[in-house]
């Protein structure tokens, strides 16, 4: 479980996060949604410790990252898997080397054990056999899946995904969404997904938090979305005609089954 308390961050005197508190449960796909510029990425990077917040606490099952010793911090970081918006694969490494990297840095596994684990995770993301290709030689969707494979190779307790399906076609996007959800269930991870993709939210969102102007505006499940009268959420979610129509049907029929 990840607990965030009163997270505050400003850049050059301009507040970007204004005291956000939230709890993200284990074994669930937690979605952080909001428009571009709402503070989602700063929020996620603050949780990850990539940005130092001005105020507030982030605790990982009771462990506060910046209060830990260097050794404990490293141990905690080994429990984190991160899928970056731009994949962040190392260009000069092959796919296999990319996935092996966390194992080589932090474990004493033999080459054979690492190779076996690489093949396992590549199979999980349905990319067996591309071990010797370079990131530039595969498509964006495949790169995203390799990013996921690298993130899960050490069987993380916490999985973070920043806009995991941005720029992907709908079918690949759904594949990525389902993969994240399946891995969350399989490894029992606390998963945080930053997104503004409504399809993703409806596909895998179990707990949803809406950010607007650096504040938490709403929190609930995907079913709650259809019955809330929160104007910010309605404005964000039902901005498209398709979703407005879906809402009308759901509200009229009085039930929803995802």
């Amino acid at each position, binding site marked *: 479980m990840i607990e965030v308390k009163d997270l505050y961050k400003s850049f050059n005197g301009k507040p970007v996060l204004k005291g956000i508190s939230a709890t993200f449960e284990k074994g669930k796909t937690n979605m952080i949604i909001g428009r571009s510029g709402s503070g989602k990425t700063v929020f996620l990077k603050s949780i990850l410790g990539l940005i130092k917040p001005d105020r507030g606490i982030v605790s990982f099952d009771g462990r506060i990252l910046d209060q830990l010793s260097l050794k404990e911090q*490293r141990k905690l970081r*080994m429990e984190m898997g*991160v899928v970056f918006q*731009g994949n962040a*694969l190392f260009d000069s490494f092959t796919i296999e080397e990319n996935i092996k990297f966390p194992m*080589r*840095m*932090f474990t004493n596994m033999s080459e054979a054990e690492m190779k076996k684990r690489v093949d396992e995770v590549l199979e999980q993301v349905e990319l067996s056999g591309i071990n010797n290709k370079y990131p530039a030689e595969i498509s964006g969707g495949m790169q995203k899946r390799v990013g996921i494979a690298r993130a899960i190779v050490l069987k993380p307790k916490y999985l973070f995904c920043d806009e995991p399906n941005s720029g992907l076609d709908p079918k690949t996007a759904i594949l990525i969404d389902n993969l994240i959800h399946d891995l969350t269930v399989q490894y029992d991870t606390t998963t945080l997904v930053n997104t503004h993709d409504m399809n993703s939210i409806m596909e895998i969102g179990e707990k949803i938090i809406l950010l607007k102007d650096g504040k938490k505006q709403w929190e609930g499940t995907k079913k709650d979305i259809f019955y809330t009268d929160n104007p910010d959420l309605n404005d964000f979610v039902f901005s498209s005609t398709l979703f407005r129509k879906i809402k009308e049907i759901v509200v009229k029929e009085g039930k929803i089954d995802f």
Partner: protein
Amino acid sequence: MLKEVFTRPQKPKIFWENYFREIEDLGIKSIGLVAFISFFIGGVVTIQTARNLSNPLIDKLYIGYATMKSIVLEFSPTFISIILAGIVGSYIASTIGTMRITEQIDALDVMGVNSKNYLVLPKVLATVTFYPLLIVISMFLGILGGWVAGNLTGMVLTEDYLRGIRYDFEPFDITYALIKTVVFAFFIATIPAYYGYYVKGGALEVGRAATQAVIWTSVTIIIFNYILTQLLLS
């Protein structure tokens, strides 16, 4: 930044792999250009010196002497370092800068890797240990280029040239040149790494960072060339 760069590597095996890769990227791949430039500049220095020492009363050995002194004291350690600041400095700044803007450095940090140590220390060690060898190669080829040019033009005989390069030979000149090289090699790795590591923005900013890195590395080399010369030779 330097404090985090100069810490013990997390995985020595990976550090040494990176070190040898940097030796190849930053050192071995520069040998061709350094050799080419050194050979021809050596030739040019000899021809220009010979033209200016046309007085028959002046011993021809001074042509070789002047070539050797120019190459060993200044051209190889300082000007080759400035050329390397352009080639290698822009390479370091742009590769690290690209890693920054594509979140590869964030990926290292979030995994718990000390990214400054992982990315910068092998480069610093590679330049500091390999560039003295590169500069010795440059000195040799510069002097060789002078001999070839002197012979081809007929401006200096081999015997005079060989007498010249051995005349008033000061072993400390080599030490002085290598001390300068090590200091400049440190700047060639660290200043561009700093510009690359802290770049913000996109491709344009990476390009600007590379340019700034080359400018400031060159300026620092020129200033420290003066300081070290005054400290070591005066």
